């Protein structure tokens, strides 16, 4: 069973590289029983959104941009 320190490290790294299947499974298991690390995941995502908001560069890649937008009708 990985520690919260290791789990947060993987959560951080998942923003930098693709995790291996083994890492993903271990992390998912950890998060299934650890509310703190589940929240950490969402809050790291918020840090990213906030930073981009702050520097006014939503995202340089348009394909990723569209993923976050609601489809227009």
């Amino acid at each position, binding site marked *: 069973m990985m*520690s*919260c*320190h*290791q789990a*947060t*490290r993987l959560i*951080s*790294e998942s*923003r*930098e*590289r693709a995790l291996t299947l083994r890492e993903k499974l271990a992390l998912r298991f950890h998060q299934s029983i650890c*509310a*703190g*690390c589940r*929240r*950490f995941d969402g*809050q*790291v995502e*918020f*840090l*990213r*959104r*906030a*930073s*981009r*908001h*702050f*520097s*006014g*560069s*939503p*995202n*340089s890649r348009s394909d990723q941009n569209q993923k976050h937008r609601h489809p227009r009708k």
Partner: protein
Amino acid sequence: MPKNNTTQEMVLDDAYLSELRGKLMRFARLQLSDAAAAEDAVQEALAGALKNLDSFSGTAAFRTWVFAILKHKITDHFRRSKRLLNESSLPPGDEEQDRSDGLFDQKGHWYRDERPQPWADPEGALESRHFWRVFEACLEHLPSKQARVFMMREFVGLTSDEICAEVSLSVSNLHVLLHRARLRLRNCLENNWFKGGAS
């Protein structure tokens, strides 16, 4: 999306430029303790980007570009003053010391008081001026190297590889720094905004 103005018109708008300059200055000041050097770097970055104004389609592209130039100016400054080299070698085994940051116990589990709590209305925070002051203060409290790589990654949007090439770090050292920066920044925002400050 309707495009009424050219990028040129939008960028040369006084209000837009002064807001952008403010952001660039904050960004530069977070990384350079020397105010005059920060001012110079911002000035050069803006001048450089404005010279090539024609090649941008939209203010977002322009802004991203100015930040990228500014980052290079800042890196140049560090290179010249040799601070970068002195700072960039992390001692091996540094990762272990991270646990003593006070967030995790001996076994690497959250201390009860440090465990992330639910955040009320994070999206609303993005609209609050006061939140941004807290956010900046938290960034300023990061150790300078952590702040720098975090900003290169999340503000400028450089990839891990680009940052490593720029500041001569190994990928695994970079990941350690980003991990720490995220832990600290998250913790700081929780303590100073989401816990007490927000209502």
